[in-house]
Protein backbone atom coordinates (compact mmCIF):
# COMPACT_ATOMS: atom_id res chain seq x y z
CA UNK A 1 0.00 0.00 0.00
CA UNK A 2 1.43 3.35 -0.94
CA UNK A 3 1.87 6.09 1.61
CA UNK A 4 -0.26 8.74 -0.11
CA UNK A 5 -3.39 6.64 0.11
CA UNK A 6 -2.62 5.87 3.70
CA UNK A 7 -2.54 9.52 4.68
CA UNK A 8 -5.56 10.53 2.64
CA UNK A 9 -7.72 8.23 4.73
CA UNK A 10 -6.49 9.49 8.05
CA UNK A 11 -5.37 13.08 7.76
CA UNK A 12 -8.70 14.77 8.41
CA UNK A 13 -7.85 15.33 12.03
CA UNK A 14 -9.69 18.65 12.39
CA UNK A 15 -13.23 18.17 13.66
CA UNK A 16 -15.89 19.74 11.45
CA UNK A 17 -19.66 19.83 11.26
CA UNK A 18 -21.79 18.06 8.66
CA UNK A 19 -24.90 19.41 6.92
CA UNK A 20 -27.13 18.30 9.81
CA UNK A 21 -24.97 20.09 12.37
CA UNK A 22 -23.49 16.88 13.74
CA UNK A 23 -19.80 16.91 14.61
CA UNK A 24 -17.58 14.85 12.38
CA UNK A 25 -13.94 14.01 12.88
CA UNK A 26 -11.30 11.42 12.25
CA UNK A 27 -11.21 7.73 13.09
CA UNK A 28 -13.37 5.78 15.50
CA UNK A 29 -14.58 7.91 18.39
CA UNK A 30 -17.18 8.38 21.10
CA UNK A 31 -20.27 10.33 20.13
CA UNK A 32 -20.70 13.35 22.39
CA UNK A 33 -22.91 13.09 25.46
CA UNK A 34 -22.76 12.36 29.16
CA UNK A 35 -21.38 8.97 29.93
CA UNK A 36 -21.34 6.81 33.00
CA UNK A 37 -18.52 6.40 35.45
CA UNK A 38 -14.99 6.54 34.12
CA UNK A 39 -13.09 3.25 34.34
CA UNK A 40 -9.50 2.53 33.36
CA UNK A 41 -7.98 -0.65 32.07
CA UNK A 42 -4.77 -1.61 30.33
CA UNK A 43 -4.25 -3.06 26.87
CA UNK A 44 -0.80 -4.57 26.41
CA UNK A 45 0.34 -2.47 29.35
CA UNK A 46 -0.97 0.81 27.95
CA UNK A 47 -3.59 2.61 30.05
CA UNK A 48 -6.93 3.06 28.26
CA UNK A 49 -9.78 5.33 29.29
CA UNK A 50 -13.24 3.83 29.18
CA UNK A 51 -16.71 4.30 30.61
CA UNK A 52 -18.96 2.00 32.54
CA UNK A 53 -21.20 -0.06 30.26
CA UNK A 54 -18.77 -0.15 27.35
CA UNK A 55 -17.50 -3.43 26.01
CA UNK A 56 -13.76 -4.02 25.72
CA UNK A 57 -14.16 -3.87 21.94
CA UNK A 58 -16.00 -0.54 22.12
CA UNK A 59 -13.50 1.07 24.48
CA UNK A 60 -10.50 -0.11 22.45
CA UNK A 61 -12.14 1.08 19.24
CA UNK A 62 -12.82 4.52 20.77
CA UNK A 63 -9.17 4.71 21.80
CA UNK A 64 -8.25 4.26 18.14
CA UNK A 65 -6.96 0.71 18.42
CA UNK A 66 -8.41 -1.45 15.69
CA UNK A 67 -6.04 -4.41 15.68
CA UNK A 68 -6.97 -6.72 18.54
CA UNK A 69 -4.76 -9.70 17.78
CA UNK A 70 -2.39 -11.35 15.33
CA UNK A 71 -3.48 -14.64 13.80
CA UNK A 72 -1.67 -17.79 14.86
CA UNK A 73 -0.83 -19.21 11.48
CA UNK A 74 -0.05 -16.23 9.26
CA UNK A 75 0.43 -13.45 11.80
CA UNK A 76 -2.22 -11.26 10.17
CA UNK A 77 -3.87 -8.39 12.06
CA UNK A 78 -7.51 -8.93 13.01
CA UNK A 79 -10.06 -6.65 14.61
CA UNK A 80 -13.72 -6.37 15.45
CA UNK A 81 -15.86 -8.00 12.74
CA UNK A 82 -19.43 -9.03 13.71
CA UNK A 83 -19.70 -7.26 17.10
CA UNK A 84 -22.35 -9.74 18.23
CA UNK A 85 -20.36 -12.65 19.58
CA UNK A 86 -20.63 -14.88 16.53
CA UNK A 87 -17.32 -14.60 14.65
CA UNK A 88 -14.73 -14.86 17.47
CA UNK A 89 -12.38 -12.45 15.65
CA UNK A 90 -12.07 -10.08 18.60
CA UNK A 91 -10.47 -12.60 20.98
CA UNK A 92 -8.26 -11.08 23.68
CA UNK A 93 -6.69 -12.22 26.92
CA UNK A 94 -8.49 -10.80 29.97
CA UNK A 95 -6.74 -11.01 33.35
CA UNK A 96 -4.81 -14.03 32.14
CA UNK A 97 -7.78 -15.83 30.54
CA UNK A 98 -7.23 -16.17 26.79
CA UNK A 99 -9.87 -16.28 24.05
CA UNK A 100 -12.37 -13.85 25.56
CA UNK A 101 -14.63 -12.07 23.07
CA UNK A 102 -13.93 -8.35 23.42
CA UNK A 103 -17.35 -7.49 21.94
CA UNK A 104 -19.20 -9.40 24.66
CA UNK A 105 -17.10 -8.45 27.68
CA UNK A 106 -17.90 -5.28 29.63
CA UNK A 107 -14.95 -3.25 30.90
CA UNK A 108 -14.38 -2.81 34.60
CA UNK A 109 -11.77 -0.80 36.41
CA UNK A 110 -8.34 -2.36 36.44
CA UNK A 111 -8.84 -5.07 33.81
CA UNK A 112 -5.57 -6.24 32.33
CA UNK A 113 -6.12 -7.00 28.68
CA UNK A 114 -3.53 -8.40 26.32
CA UNK A 115 -3.66 -8.90 22.60
CA UNK A 116 -3.14 -12.47 21.49
CA UNK A 117 0.10 -12.63 19.53
CA UNK A 118 1.11 -14.95 16.73
CA UNK A 119 3.35 -16.73 19.22
CA UNK A 120 2.29 -20.19 18.15
CA UNK A 121 3.51 -19.61 14.61
CA UNK A 122 6.26 -22.20 15.06
CA UNK A 123 3.66 -24.92 15.43
CA UNK A 124 2.86 -24.66 11.77
CA UNK A 125 6.35 -24.42 10.35
Amino acid at each position, binding site marked *: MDATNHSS*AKDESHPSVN*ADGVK*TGSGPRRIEGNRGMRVDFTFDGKSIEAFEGETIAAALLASGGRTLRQTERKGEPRGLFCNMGICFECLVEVNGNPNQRACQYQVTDGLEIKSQPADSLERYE
Partner: protein
Amino acid sequence: MIQRDLVIVGAGPAGMAAAATACRAGLGVTLIDENLSTGGQIYRQSPAALAGLSVPTGESSLHGKQMIGELESLKDQIEWLPNTSVWGYFPERRLAVRSDRGWQIIAAKQIILAAGAYEFVSPFPGWTLPGVMTPGGAQSMVKTMNILPGSRILIAGSGPFLLVVAAQLHAAGAEVVGVLETARRRDAFRHLPSLFSYPKLLRQGRHYLQQLRKANIPLHWGHLVTSAEGSECIENATIAACDGNGRPRGQASTIAIDTLCIGYGFVPRTELAQMADCAMEYCELIGGWIPQVDATFETSVSGVRVAGDGGGVAGAIVAEIEGTVAGLAAAHQLGTIDDVTYQARFDPLAKQLRKLRIFRSALDRIYRIRPGLLDLACPDTTICRCEEISRQEIEEGIEFGGTNISTLKVITRAGMGPCQGKMCWPAVARLIADKEGKSVAEVGNVRVRPPIGSLAMTDLLTELSLDPIQEKH
Protein backbone atom coordinates in the same frame (compact mmCIF):
# COMPACT_ATOMS: atom_id res chain seq x y z
CA MET B 1 -35.33 -31.33 37.68
CA ILE B 2 -38.21 -28.94 37.21
CA GLN B 3 -40.03 -29.20 33.92
CA ARG B 4 -41.07 -25.79 32.58
CA ASP B 5 -44.18 -25.34 30.48
CA LEU B 6 -42.34 -23.36 27.83
CA VAL B 7 -38.69 -22.46 27.34
CA ILE B 8 -37.91 -19.82 24.73
CA VAL B 9 -34.39 -19.41 23.39
CA GLY B 10 -33.69 -15.88 22.19
CA ALA B 11 -35.23 -12.60 23.35
CA GLY B 12 -35.45 -10.75 20.04
CA PRO B 13 -38.79 -9.82 18.48
CA ALA B 14 -39.87 -13.46 17.98
CA GLY B 15 -38.86 -14.60 21.47
CA MET B 16 -40.31 -11.54 23.20
CA ALA B 17 -43.63 -11.87 21.38
CA ALA B 18 -43.78 -15.59 22.15
CA ALA B 19 -42.98 -15.00 25.83
CA ALA B 20 -45.58 -12.27 26.33
CA THR B 21 -48.26 -14.20 24.43
CA ALA B 22 -47.66 -17.52 26.17
CA CYS B 23 -47.39 -15.92 29.60
CA ARG B 24 -50.73 -14.15 29.14
CA ALA B 25 -52.20 -17.42 27.92
CA GLY B 26 -51.31 -18.97 31.25
CA LEU B 27 -48.03 -20.81 30.62
CA GLY B 28 -45.04 -20.78 32.92
CA VAL B 29 -42.42 -19.24 30.65
CA THR B 30 -38.63 -19.28 30.83
CA LEU B 31 -36.92 -16.84 28.46
CA ILE B 32 -33.21 -17.25 27.75
CA ASP B 33 -30.81 -14.93 25.95
CA GLU B 34 -27.04 -14.61 25.61
CA ASN B 35 -27.28 -10.87 26.05
CA LEU B 36 -27.75 -8.91 29.24
CA SER B 37 -31.06 -7.46 28.15
CA THR B 38 -34.03 -8.27 25.94
CA GLY B 39 -34.41 -6.89 22.42
CA GLY B 40 -32.21 -9.19 20.37
CA GLN B 41 -29.99 -7.61 17.76
CA ILE B 42 -32.59 -5.37 16.16
CA TYR B 43 -33.93 -3.84 19.37
CA ARG B 44 -30.67 -4.18 21.26
CA GLN B 45 -30.61 -2.01 24.36
CA SER B 46 -27.74 0.08 25.67
CA PRO B 47 -26.29 -1.04 28.97
CA ALA B 48 -27.84 0.89 31.89
CA ALA B 49 -24.72 3.03 32.36
CA LEU B 50 -24.95 4.27 28.76
CA ALA B 51 -28.72 4.45 28.50
CA GLY B 52 -28.72 8.26 28.74
CA LEU B 53 -27.07 8.55 25.34
CA SER B 54 -29.02 8.00 22.22
CA VAL B 55 -28.48 8.17 18.51
CA PRO B 56 -31.59 8.98 16.48
CA THR B 57 -33.10 5.67 15.46
CA GLY B 58 -36.67 5.75 14.25
CA GLU B 59 -40.05 4.16 14.17
CA SER B 60 -38.95 0.55 14.44
CA SER B 61 -36.86 1.15 17.54
CA LEU B 62 -39.84 2.87 19.20
CA HIS B 63 -41.82 -0.27 18.56
CA GLY B 64 -38.96 -2.30 20.04
CA LYS B 65 -39.07 -0.18 23.18
CA GLN B 66 -42.79 -0.86 23.45
CA MET B 67 -42.22 -4.60 23.20
CA ILE B 68 -39.47 -4.46 25.79
CA GLY B 69 -41.71 -2.44 28.11
CA GLU B 70 -44.55 -4.90 27.68
CA LEU B 71 -42.29 -7.78 28.63
CA GLU B 72 -40.99 -5.77 31.56
CA SER B 73 -44.55 -5.51 32.89
CA LEU B 74 -44.70 -9.32 32.99
CA LYS B 75 -41.35 -9.72 34.70
CA ASP B 76 -42.83 -11.20 37.88
CA GLN B 77 -44.42 -13.97 35.86
CA ILE B 78 -41.66 -14.81 33.38
CA GLU B 79 -38.43 -16.49 34.41
CA TRP B 80 -35.86 -14.36 32.59
CA LEU B 81 -32.35 -15.75 32.22
CA PRO B 82 -30.09 -13.08 30.68
CA ASN B 83 -26.42 -13.59 29.88
CA THR B 84 -27.20 -17.28 29.48
CA SER B 85 -26.31 -19.41 26.51
CA VAL B 86 -27.79 -22.70 25.46
CA TRP B 87 -24.98 -25.06 24.53
CA GLY B 88 -26.90 -28.22 23.82
CA TYR B 89 -30.23 -29.85 23.08
CA PHE B 90 -30.90 -33.31 24.43
CA PRO B 91 -34.03 -35.37 23.86
CA GLU B 92 -36.79 -35.04 25.07
CA ARG B 93 -36.83 -31.27 25.03
CA ARG B 94 -33.97 -30.74 27.46
CA LEU B 95 -31.67 -27.75 27.05
CA ALA B 96 -28.21 -27.43 28.55
CA VAL B 97 -27.67 -23.82 29.59
CA ARG B 98 -24.87 -21.95 31.21
CA SER B 99 -24.18 -18.50 32.56
CA ASP B 100 -21.66 -16.94 34.91
CA ARG B 101 -23.84 -18.33 37.72
CA GLY B 102 -23.31 -21.91 36.64
CA TRP B 103 -24.92 -24.42 34.37
CA GLN B 104 -27.90 -26.73 34.39
CA ILE B 105 -30.25 -28.79 32.27
CA ILE B 106 -33.70 -27.30 31.78
CA ALA B 107 -36.51 -29.60 30.69
CA ALA B 108 -39.55 -28.22 28.93
CA LYS B 109 -42.95 -29.38 27.80
CA GLN B 110 -42.69 -26.95 24.89
CA ILE B 111 -39.71 -25.18 23.34
CA ILE B 112 -39.62 -22.20 21.01
CA LEU B 113 -36.28 -21.57 19.32
CA ALA B 114 -36.00 -17.91 18.36
CA ALA B 115 -32.26 -17.70 17.84
CA GLY B 116 -32.26 -15.08 15.07
CA ALA B 117 -29.72 -14.73 12.32
CA TYR B 118 -26.25 -13.40 11.67
CA GLU B 119 -24.80 -11.55 8.71
CA PHE B 120 -23.34 -13.26 5.68
CA VAL B 121 -20.19 -11.78 4.22
CA SER B 122 -19.00 -13.37 1.00
CA PRO B 123 -15.19 -13.67 1.18
CA PHE B 124 -13.12 -11.26 -0.91
CA PRO B 125 -9.46 -10.18 -0.86
CA GLY B 126 -8.78 -8.07 2.24
CA TRP B 127 -11.97 -8.97 4.12
CA THR B 128 -9.99 -9.97 7.21
CA LEU B 129 -8.39 -6.52 7.63
CA PRO B 130 -9.29 -4.59 10.79
CA GLY B 131 -11.76 -1.87 9.82
CA VAL B 132 -13.78 -4.27 7.67
CA MET B 133 -16.88 -5.19 9.62
CA THR B 134 -20.51 -6.14 9.25
CA PRO B 135 -23.15 -3.40 8.90
CA GLY B 136 -24.97 -4.83 11.92
CA GLY B 137 -21.77 -4.72 13.95
CA ALA B 138 -21.27 -1.06 13.08
CA GLN B 139 -24.90 -0.29 13.81
CA SER B 140 -24.84 -1.81 17.26
CA MET B 141 -21.56 -0.04 18.04
CA VAL B 142 -23.35 3.23 17.33
CA LYS B 143 -26.75 2.36 18.81
CA THR B 144 -25.72 0.66 22.02
CA MET B 145 -22.22 2.01 22.71
CA ASN B 146 -22.54 5.44 21.10
CA ILE B 147 -19.20 4.93 19.45
CA LEU B 148 -18.54 5.45 15.76
CA PRO B 149 -16.47 2.63 14.25
CA GLY B 150 -14.75 5.08 11.88
CA SER B 151 -15.07 8.45 10.26
CA ARG B 152 -14.99 7.70 6.53
CA ILE B 153 -17.24 4.75 5.94
CA LEU B 154 -18.25 2.83 2.83
CA ILE B 155 -21.28 0.57 3.09
CA ALA B 156 -21.57 -2.32 0.67
CA GLY B 157 -23.28 -5.62 0.08
CA SER B 158 -26.95 -6.21 -0.45
CA GLY B 159 -30.29 -5.57 1.18
CA PRO B 160 -32.42 -2.76 2.57
CA PHE B 161 -30.60 -3.03 5.90
CA LEU B 162 -27.62 -1.23 4.30
CA LEU B 163 -29.76 1.90 3.87
CA VAL B 164 -30.78 1.86 7.52
CA VAL B 165 -27.18 1.55 8.68
CA ALA B 166 -26.02 4.28 6.28
CA ALA B 167 -28.64 6.71 7.60
CA GLN B 168 -27.77 5.92 11.23
CA LEU B 169 -24.01 6.22 10.80
CA HIS B 170 -24.52 9.54 9.02
CA ALA B 171 -26.83 10.81 11.77
CA ALA B 172 -24.18 9.88 14.31
CA GLY B 173 -21.60 12.03 12.55
CA ALA B 174 -19.72 9.68 10.26
CA GLU B 175 -18.94 10.59 6.69
CA VAL B 176 -20.71 7.86 4.73
CA VAL B 177 -19.02 7.99 1.34
CA GLY B 178 -21.61 5.80 -0.34
CA VAL B 179 -23.73 2.68 -0.39
CA LEU B 180 -22.91 -0.01 -2.94
CA GLU B 181 -25.83 -2.33 -3.62
CA THR B 182 -25.05 -5.46 -5.64
CA ALA B 183 -28.63 -5.67 -6.93
CA ARG B 184 -29.30 -3.54 -9.98
CA ARG B 185 -31.94 -0.85 -10.04
CA ARG B 186 -33.83 -2.82 -12.67
CA ASP B 187 -34.04 -5.81 -10.28
CA ALA B 188 -35.81 -3.55 -7.81
CA PHE B 189 -38.16 -2.15 -10.45
CA ARG B 190 -39.10 -5.60 -11.68
CA HIS B 191 -40.40 -6.52 -8.21
CA LEU B 192 -41.83 -3.12 -7.33
CA PRO B 193 -45.48 -4.17 -7.88
CA SER B 194 -45.17 -6.90 -5.23
CA LEU B 195 -43.69 -4.39 -2.82
CA PHE B 196 -46.96 -2.44 -2.93
CA SER B 197 -48.55 -5.40 -1.14
CA TYR B 198 -47.30 -3.97 2.14
CA PRO B 199 -47.31 -0.17 1.77
CA LYS B 200 -46.12 0.45 5.32
CA LEU B 201 -42.81 -1.30 4.71
CA LEU B 202 -42.46 0.25 1.27
CA ARG B 203 -42.85 3.67 2.88
CA GLN B 204 -40.14 2.79 5.37
CA GLY B 205 -37.79 1.94 2.51
CA ARG B 206 -38.63 5.19 0.76
CA HIS B 207 -38.00 7.09 3.98
CA TYR B 208 -34.46 5.73 4.20
CA LEU B 209 -33.82 6.45 0.52
CA GLN B 210 -34.91 10.04 1.12
CA GLN B 211 -32.64 10.34 4.14
CA LEU B 212 -29.71 9.20 2.04
CA ARG B 213 -30.56 11.72 -0.66
CA LYS B 214 -30.87 14.51 1.90
CA ALA B 215 -27.47 13.60 3.31
CA ASN B 216 -25.94 13.47 -0.18
CA ILE B 217 -24.95 9.84 0.28
CA PRO B 218 -24.83 8.24 -3.16
CA LEU B 219 -26.53 4.87 -3.56
CA HIS B 220 -24.93 2.89 -6.39
CA TRP B 221 -27.10 0.02 -7.57
CA GLY B 222 -25.26 -2.77 -9.39
CA HIS B 223 -21.93 -2.08 -7.69
CA LEU B 224 -19.76 -4.01 -5.32
CA VAL B 225 -16.48 -4.01 -3.42
CA THR B 226 -14.02 -6.31 -5.15
CA SER B 227 -11.19 -5.99 -2.61
CA ALA B 228 -9.98 -4.13 0.47
CA GLU B 229 -6.41 -2.97 0.83
CA GLY B 230 -4.29 -1.76 3.73
CA SER B 231 -1.37 -2.83 5.86
CA GLU B 232 -2.57 -2.80 9.50
CA CYS B 233 -6.13 -1.62 8.76
CA ILE B 234 -8.27 -1.02 5.72
CA GLU B 235 -7.10 2.08 3.84
CA ASN B 236 -8.76 1.61 0.45
CA ALA B 237 -11.59 -0.32 -1.12
CA THR B 238 -11.61 -1.23 -4.79
CA ILE B 239 -15.07 -0.95 -6.27
CA ALA B 240 -16.65 -1.86 -9.58
CA ALA B 241 -19.98 -2.10 -11.35
CA CYS B 242 -21.34 -5.63 -11.65
CA ASP B 243 -23.67 -7.63 -13.84
CA GLY B 244 -26.81 -9.47 -12.76
CA ASN B 245 -24.74 -12.40 -11.50
CA GLY B 246 -22.60 -10.19 -9.29
CA ARG B 247 -19.58 -10.37 -11.60
CA PRO B 248 -17.55 -7.15 -11.82
CA ARG B 249 -17.48 -5.44 -15.19
CA GLY B 250 -15.85 -2.29 -16.55
CA GLN B 251 -13.23 -0.15 -14.93
CA ALA B 252 -12.56 -0.62 -11.22
CA SER B 253 -11.78 2.39 -9.05
CA THR B 254 -10.29 2.90 -5.61
CA ILE B 255 -11.70 4.87 -2.72
CA ALA B 256 -9.89 5.85 0.48
CA ILE B 257 -11.85 4.94 3.62
CA ASP B 258 -11.14 3.93 7.19
CA THR B 259 -14.11 1.58 7.61
CA LEU B 260 -15.94 -0.79 5.29
CA CYS B 261 -19.28 -2.16 6.44
CA ILE B 262 -20.15 -5.12 4.25
CA GLY B 263 -22.91 -7.71 4.41
CA TYR B 264 -24.93 -9.72 1.89
CA GLY B 265 -27.92 -10.55 4.02
CA PHE B 266 -28.44 -12.96 6.88
CA VAL B 267 -27.99 -16.61 7.78
CA PRO B 268 -30.47 -18.24 10.21
CA ARG B 269 -29.01 -19.68 13.41
CA THR B 270 -30.24 -23.24 13.41
CA GLU B 271 -27.74 -25.14 15.58
CA LEU B 272 -30.28 -26.07 18.25
CA ALA B 273 -32.90 -27.14 15.72
CA GLN B 274 -30.27 -29.30 14.02
CA MET B 275 -29.17 -30.75 17.34
CA ALA B 276 -32.80 -31.54 18.11
CA ASP B 277 -32.85 -33.47 14.84
CA CYS B 278 -35.53 -31.29 13.26
CA ALA B 279 -36.01 -32.06 9.56
CA MET B 280 -34.27 -29.30 7.58
CA GLU B 281 -34.67 -27.93 4.08
CA TYR B 282 -32.52 -25.66 1.95
CA CYS B 283 -34.11 -22.32 1.02
CA GLU B 284 -31.46 -20.16 -0.61
CA LEU B 285 -33.61 -17.02 -0.70
CA ILE B 286 -34.24 -16.91 3.04
CA GLY B 287 -30.74 -17.67 4.16
CA GLY B 288 -29.97 -21.35 3.54
CA TRP B 289 -30.81 -24.36 5.71
CA ILE B 290 -33.95 -23.95 7.80
CA PRO B 291 -36.15 -26.30 9.82
CA GLN B 292 -39.35 -27.48 8.14
CA VAL B 293 -42.35 -26.18 10.05
CA ASP B 294 -46.16 -26.40 9.98
CA ALA B 295 -48.56 -23.45 10.17
CA THR B 296 -47.93 -23.13 13.92
CA PHE B 297 -44.14 -23.20 13.39
CA GLU B 298 -43.80 -26.63 14.95
CA THR B 299 -40.85 -28.57 13.57
CA SER B 300 -40.75 -32.30 12.87
CA VAL B 301 -39.89 -32.73 16.56
CA SER B 302 -43.04 -32.63 18.66
CA GLY B 303 -43.28 -29.59 20.94
CA VAL B 304 -40.29 -27.82 19.36
CA ARG B 305 -41.14 -24.69 17.40
CA VAL B 306 -38.93 -22.26 15.53
CA ALA B 307 -39.94 -18.61 15.13
CA GLY B 308 -38.35 -15.53 13.62
CA ASP B 309 -35.24 -15.21 11.48
CA GLY B 310 -33.83 -18.43 12.94
CA GLY B 311 -36.45 -20.27 10.89
CA GLY B 312 -35.77 -18.33 7.68
CA VAL B 313 -34.83 -14.68 7.41
CA ALA B 314 -37.85 -12.38 7.09
CA GLY B 315 -37.21 -9.45 9.42
CA ALA B 316 -38.57 -8.16 12.72
CA ILE B 317 -42.24 -7.67 11.81
CA VAL B 318 -42.62 -11.23 10.55
CA ALA B 319 -40.60 -12.51 13.52
CA GLU B 320 -42.95 -10.86 15.98
CA ILE B 321 -46.04 -12.39 14.37
CA GLU B 322 -44.40 -15.82 14.13
CA GLY B 323 -43.43 -15.59 17.78
CA THR B 324 -47.00 -14.69 18.71
CA VAL B 325 -48.37 -17.64 16.73
CA ALA B 326 -45.81 -20.02 18.23
CA GLY B 327 -46.59 -18.81 21.76
CA LEU B 328 -50.33 -19.24 21.19
CA ALA B 329 -49.85 -22.68 19.67
CA ALA B 330 -47.72 -23.81 22.62
CA ALA B 331 -50.44 -22.67 25.03
CA HIS B 332 -53.10 -24.35 22.90
CA GLN B 333 -51.13 -27.57 22.82
CA LEU B 334 -50.81 -27.56 26.61
CA GLY B 335 -54.50 -26.82 26.96
CA THR B 336 -54.39 -23.39 28.63
CA ILE B 337 -56.44 -21.81 25.86
CA ASP B 338 -59.43 -23.43 24.18
CA ASP B 339 -59.88 -24.18 20.49
CA VAL B 340 -62.21 -21.25 19.83
CA THR B 341 -59.99 -18.63 21.44
CA TYR B 342 -56.97 -20.07 19.71
CA GLN B 343 -58.56 -20.11 16.27
CA ALA B 344 -59.91 -16.60 16.68
CA ARG B 345 -56.44 -15.28 17.39
CA PHE B 346 -54.58 -17.51 14.95
CA ASP B 347 -56.56 -16.70 11.79
CA PRO B 348 -55.84 -12.95 11.51
CA LEU B 349 -52.16 -13.53 12.30
CA ALA B 350 -51.89 -16.19 9.61
CA LYS B 351 -53.55 -13.81 7.16
CA GLN B 352 -51.09 -11.04 8.02
CA LEU B 353 -48.18 -13.44 7.49
CA ARG B 354 -49.48 -14.41 4.05
CA LYS B 355 -49.62 -10.75 3.08
CA LEU B 356 -46.13 -10.10 4.36
CA ARG B 357 -44.82 -13.14 2.52
CA ILE B 358 -45.58 -11.50 -0.84
CA PHE B 359 -43.57 -8.44 0.17
CA ARG B 360 -40.74 -10.42 1.71
CA SER B 361 -40.35 -12.79 -1.19
CA ALA B 362 -40.04 -9.82 -3.58
CA LEU B 363 -37.27 -8.41 -1.37
CA ASP B 364 -35.59 -11.82 -1.25
CA ARG B 365 -35.55 -11.92 -5.04
CA ILE B 366 -34.23 -8.38 -5.44
CA TYR B 367 -31.45 -8.90 -2.94
CA ARG B 368 -30.62 -12.55 -3.61
CA ILE B 369 -27.02 -13.69 -3.25
CA ARG B 370 -25.41 -13.61 -6.70
CA PRO B 371 -23.30 -16.58 -7.78
CA GLY B 372 -20.46 -14.37 -9.06
CA LEU B 373 -19.67 -12.99 -5.60
CA LEU B 374 -17.69 -16.08 -4.72
CA ASP B 375 -15.37 -15.47 -7.67
CA LEU B 376 -14.09 -12.35 -5.92
CA ALA B 377 -12.12 -14.67 -3.61
CA CYS B 378 -8.65 -15.30 -5.10
CA PRO B 379 -6.69 -18.52 -4.52
CA ASP B 380 -4.90 -16.95 -1.53
CA THR B 381 -8.00 -15.27 -0.07
CA THR B 382 -8.89 -16.56 3.40
CA ILE B 383 -12.22 -18.41 3.44
CA CYS B 384 -12.17 -19.85 6.97
CA ARG B 385 -11.20 -16.87 9.11
CA CYS B 386 -10.63 -18.85 12.32
CA GLU B 387 -8.27 -21.49 10.93
CA GLU B 388 -6.91 -19.24 8.14
CA ILE B 389 -7.72 -21.61 5.31
CA SER B 390 -7.46 -20.13 1.81
CA ARG B 391 -9.66 -20.76 -1.18
CA GLN B 392 -6.85 -22.74 -2.80
CA GLU B 393 -6.49 -24.98 0.26
CA ILE B 394 -10.23 -25.58 0.26
CA GLU B 395 -10.30 -26.41 -3.45
CA GLU B 396 -7.38 -28.80 -2.98
CA GLY B 397 -9.31 -30.37 -0.13
CA ILE B 398 -12.33 -30.85 -2.37
CA GLU B 399 -10.14 -32.50 -5.02
CA PHE B 400 -8.72 -34.73 -2.31
CA GLY B 401 -12.21 -36.05 -1.61
CA GLY B 402 -13.76 -33.42 0.63
CA THR B 403 -16.97 -33.30 -1.34
CA ASN B 404 -19.18 -32.75 1.67
CA ILE B 405 -18.70 -30.24 4.46
CA SER B 406 -17.82 -32.73 7.20
CA THR B 407 -15.13 -34.49 5.16
CA LEU B 408 -13.72 -31.20 3.91
CA LYS B 409 -13.56 -30.00 7.50
CA VAL B 410 -11.46 -33.00 8.48
CA ILE B 411 -9.14 -32.58 5.49
CA THR B 412 -8.63 -28.81 5.66
CA ARG B 413 -9.68 -27.72 9.19
CA ALA B 414 -12.09 -25.21 7.58
CA GLY B 415 -14.91 -24.72 10.09
CA MET B 416 -13.03 -26.18 13.05
CA GLY B 417 -12.30 -22.86 14.74
CA PRO B 418 -14.15 -21.12 17.56
CA CYS B 419 -16.94 -19.72 15.33
CA GLN B 420 -17.81 -23.36 14.59
CA GLY B 421 -18.08 -22.68 10.88
CA LYS B 422 -20.67 -19.91 11.03
CA MET B 423 -18.49 -17.50 9.08
CA CYS B 424 -17.22 -19.86 6.38
CA TRP B 425 -19.75 -22.64 5.75
CA PRO B 426 -22.05 -20.69 3.44
CA ALA B 427 -19.05 -19.97 1.21
CA VAL B 428 -17.48 -23.42 1.64
CA ALA B 429 -20.73 -25.15 0.65
CA ARG B 430 -20.92 -23.00 -2.48
CA LEU B 431 -17.29 -23.77 -3.35
CA ILE B 432 -18.01 -27.51 -3.11
CA ALA B 433 -21.20 -27.09 -5.15
CA ASP B 434 -19.36 -25.17 -7.89
CA LYS B 435 -16.52 -27.63 -8.10
CA GLU B 436 -18.70 -30.74 -8.02
CA GLY B 437 -21.39 -29.36 -10.31
CA LYS B 438 -24.05 -29.85 -7.63
CA SER B 439 -26.54 -27.56 -5.96
CA VAL B 440 -25.77 -26.29 -2.46
CA ALA B 441 -28.74 -28.34 -1.21
CA GLU B 442 -27.14 -31.48 -2.66
CA VAL B 443 -23.84 -30.71 -0.94
CA GLY B 444 -25.72 -31.06 2.33
CA ASN B 445 -25.68 -29.40 5.69
CA VAL B 446 -23.08 -29.47 8.38
CA ARG B 447 -23.45 -31.72 11.42
CA VAL B 448 -23.86 -29.85 14.70
CA ARG B 449 -22.75 -31.30 18.00
CA PRO B 450 -22.73 -29.90 21.53
CA PRO B 451 -21.37 -27.67 22.82
CA ILE B 452 -22.49 -24.65 20.85
CA GLY B 453 -19.79 -22.09 21.55
CA SER B 454 -16.78 -22.90 23.67
CA LEU B 455 -17.16 -24.67 26.97
CA ALA B 456 -14.33 -25.43 29.36
CA MET B 457 -14.29 -28.88 30.95
CA THR B 458 -13.72 -27.17 34.28
CA ASP B 459 -17.03 -25.32 33.81
CA LEU B 460 -18.78 -28.68 33.70
CA LEU B 461 -16.79 -30.25 36.52
CA THR B 462 -16.81 -27.49 39.06
CA GLU B 463 -19.72 -25.18 38.55
CA LEU B 464 -22.43 -27.81 38.75
CA SER B 465 -21.69 -28.63 42.35
CA LEU B 466 -20.59 -25.17 43.43
CA ASP B 467 -23.05 -22.71 42.07
CA PRO B 468 -25.94 -23.89 39.93
CA ILE B 469 -28.45 -21.39 38.62
CA GLN B 470 -31.12 -20.91 41.26
CA GLU B 471 -34.30 -22.74 40.49
CA LYS B 472 -37.36 -20.52 40.58
CA HIS B 473 -40.20 -22.06 42.56
